[in-house]
């Protein structure tokens, strides 16, 4: 099978799985997850074959795999849509396929397949425990099991579509499908009000970004007449876009388009100020958090902006904005993460922060570094989220055992000592945490983060460099805080004592992802690392060839290397040091209200934006315009028609027509009949008289007419 055909077929199994599960296998849990995991496996297989072929193809950047078809006719041209795999696409496809497959397998165990049905379980609420035949409380299977797999299959379809497309139209289509699925999945437990609100919040916030992105796409289309990357990135097109000025902020057309597209990324990848949805999105099941908020959806935002790099790099103002937002988000989110107590919230803010790193890297022009960090981050963040899910499952087991349902199984201060109870989870989580912190040499995160810092430093963006370094320190700090509170020390609650390891369907993906978290970084070791003369970084050579002009490899900088070493190890050490003796929130000095409450941003948004919108919708639009004006007009028409009708009825119909035409004809006929009747009196003399008179009259008339005239 040719590579092009294979690429077209990759998104197909998940969407087929979606329809099959929804239409046919909904009632059968085993069949549903088999269909879903099978589909993910098929897509993974296709992706791996394509990846292998891709890395074996020289000059893939100049001649990517791909084909396109005519889609929308526009006068005498066609808008073409199609698929494309160039180096960037190949590496992104690689991690997307792997993480999706791991998450699908993990979901089988996470949703407690094989467990009995719950005692009071209700579709729309998280499973709450069942009683087995011995009277013990055991975890219960998720009531909406098949629906979960249908939704994540649809989600996988959206992500594959986005990664494989060769034009902005199908990219946007995949983008929006994922937006829909994030709504469906965050609000998966729809009976919980907090989940419903979080789903709406996620959708609305990303929608704000999507509107601007659509504006950007429209502007791009009207300026260039095409949406496919091949046509847009032609040098003359880029040059034309860069030289046309727009009246907004003095940006060139390229800059404005880039800025608009970037706002889409701000929404989708949860950058400041549109980051507010991501922490609330932790309401969804943990595989969803892993999928959406680590591996795929938020990566899509960064992927898109990396893809558009040739366009956005044309205008320095846009690049500055991008760099600023990325850097600010990185430090902003890191400071909040330090004060969170929910195990998933820490990871959520960590995701926001790391995405800020990638975007900042892109803003300073570090194309390859941003892509590298995207790939490695996907692996270890997915690992961390799945690991946290495993921890939560263990804690829930303890909650079921003790029967005290007021204990929050996600609060880190209820955990502790879990390294003994859940060893596989502990070691894999540790590897992931170290990768996130940038533990030197052994973990993937080190190589990618170091490259970002090196790039920032050597290109002279010192503010960015310093801020990112501080953020890296905080990253390591809160990661170690998390690991210490969760796994090290002694259990702080009875529930933690009764936790135990999760089944293989959950721990096997953790192990696989941990392997990637270690090894994935070694493909990107810089050529002149530590002054040694190594082979050129494969990743740099491969991904860098996507651009028209291969970017230069960053020269090795001892300052940058030293800084990243310092912040990583320092942060880890301090985190362990401070938190090994902290047993309760009261002892945690970093529980500053400002940080804990996320700088009160949600409250500010509510006051500034949400409440006025509601007021506007409720009062202005609903009461004044809809009910008052439009309904008023309609009621007026109704009343007017009614009035006209009754006037017509009273004055014309009843008075005139009934009386005159209706009753009138009857009366006239009766009157005529009544008055003509006596003519027939039965008296012959009268008959004779009448006939004589008439005869005389007729004779006279005839005589007059015939003789005289």
């Amino acid at each position, binding site marked *: 099978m040719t590579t092009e055909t294979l690429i077209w077929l990759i998104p197909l199994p998940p969407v087929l799985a979606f329809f099959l599960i929804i239409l046919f296998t909904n009632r059968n849990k085993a069949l549903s997850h088999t269909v879903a995991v099978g589909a993910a496996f098929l897509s993974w297989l296709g992706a791996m074959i394509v990846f292998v072929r891709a890395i074996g193809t020289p000059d893939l950047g100049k001649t990517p795999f791909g084909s396109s078809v005519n889609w929308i006719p526009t006068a005498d041209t066609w808008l073409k849509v199609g698929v494309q795999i160039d180096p960037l696409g190949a590496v992104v496809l690689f991690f997307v396929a792997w993480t999706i497959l791991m998450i699908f397998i993990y979901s089988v165990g996470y949703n407690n397949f094989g467990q009995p049905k719950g005692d009071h379980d209700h579709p729309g609420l998280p499973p709450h425990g069942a009683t087995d035949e011995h009277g013990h409380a055991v975890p219960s299977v998720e009531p909406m099991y098949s629906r979960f797999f249908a939704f994540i299959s649809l989600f996988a379809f959206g992500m594959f579509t986005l990664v494989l497309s060769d034009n902005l139209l199908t990219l946007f289509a995949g983008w929006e499908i994922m937006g829909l699925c994030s709504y469906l999945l965050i609000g998966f437990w729809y009976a919980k009000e907090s989940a419903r609100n979080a789903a709406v919040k996620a959708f609305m916030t990303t929608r704000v970004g999507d509107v601007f992105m659509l504006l950007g796409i429209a502007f791009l289309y009207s300026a260039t007449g095409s949406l496919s990357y091949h046509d847009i990135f032609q040098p003359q097109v880029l040059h034309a876009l860069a030289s046309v000025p727009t009246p907004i902020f003095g940006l060139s057309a390229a800059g404005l388009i880039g800025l608009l597209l970037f706002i889409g990324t701000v929404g989708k990848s949860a950058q400041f100020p549109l980051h507010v949805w991501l922490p609330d999105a932790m309401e969804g099941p943990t595989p969803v958090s892993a999928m959406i908020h680590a591996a795929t959806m938020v990566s899509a935002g960064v992927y898109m902006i990396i893809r558009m790099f040739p366009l956005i790099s044309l205008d320095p103002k846009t690049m500055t904005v991008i760099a600023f937002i990325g850097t600010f988000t990185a430090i902003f989110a890191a400071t909040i993460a330090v004060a969170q107590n929910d195990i998933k919230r820490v990871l959520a803010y960590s995701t926001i922060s790391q995405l800020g790193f990638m975007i900042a890297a892109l803003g300073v022009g570090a194309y390859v570094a941003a892509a590298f960090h995207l790939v490695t981050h996907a692996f270890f963040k997915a690992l961390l989220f799945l690991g946290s899910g495993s921890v939560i499952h263990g804690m829930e087991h303890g909650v079921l055992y003790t029967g005290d349902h007021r204990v929050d199984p996600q609060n880190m201060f209820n955990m502790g000592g879990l390294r003994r109870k859940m060893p596989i989870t502990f070691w894999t989580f540790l590897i992931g945490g170290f990768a996130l912190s940038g533990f030197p040499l052994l973990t993937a995160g080190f190589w990618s983060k170091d490259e970002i810092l090196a790039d920032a430093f050597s290109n002279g963006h010192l503010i960015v460099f310093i801020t990112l370094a501080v953020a890296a320190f905080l990253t390591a700090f809160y990661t170690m805080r998390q690991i210490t509170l969760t796994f090290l020390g002694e259990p702080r609650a009875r529930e933690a004592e009764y936790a135990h390891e999760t089944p293989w369907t959950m721990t096997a993906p953790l192990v696989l992802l941990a392997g990637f978290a270690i090894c994935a970084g070694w493909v990107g070791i810089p050529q002149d690392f530590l002054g040694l003369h190594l082979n050129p970084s494969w990743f740099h050579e491969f991904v860098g060839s996507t651009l028209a002009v291969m970017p230069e490899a960053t020269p090795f900088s001892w300052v940058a290397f030293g800084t990243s070493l310092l912040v990583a190890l320092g942060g880890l050490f301090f985190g362990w040091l401070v938190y090994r003796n902290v047993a309760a929130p009261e002892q945690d000095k970093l529980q500053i209200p400002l940080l804990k409450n996320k700088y009160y941003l949600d409250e500010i948004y509510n006051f500034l934006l949400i409440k006025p919108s509601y007021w506007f919708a409720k009062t202005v639009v609903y009461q004044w315009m809809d009910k008052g004006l439009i309904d008023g007009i309609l009621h007026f028409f109704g009343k007017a028609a009614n009035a006209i009708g009754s006037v017509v009825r009273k004055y014309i119909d009843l008075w005139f027509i009934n009386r005159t035409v209706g009753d009138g004809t009857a009366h006239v006929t009766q009157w005529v009949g009544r008055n003509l009747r006596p003519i*027939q009196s039965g008296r012959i003399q009268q008959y004779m008289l009448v006939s004589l008179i008439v005869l005389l009259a007729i004779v006279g008339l005839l005589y007059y007419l015939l003789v005289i005239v």
Partner: protein
Amino acid sequence: MIPLSWFLILSAALFSIGLFGVLSRRNAVAILLGIELMLNAANINLVSFWRYGDISLMAGQVFAIIVFAVAASEVAVGLALVISVYRRRNTVIADELDLLKW
């Protein structure tokens, strides 16, 4: 010497008187009397036209004879009817014989 017009005027007058009698008399027999007068007037007309026209044309007299026959039969039947009605309804006043009405 006697102009035709005298005969014709006479018959017209007799006819009119007979007409008056027919229209005005209450008794049914009297009405039949009036009819007789009218028939006679017609006869006078016929005969005078025979006399004052071509005498060899006997049509005038023949018609008058036919009128005689008709008048006789009509009177016979008419009076038979009146007698029969009188026996039934005990009246000969024409106005009271008004059953064929609305």
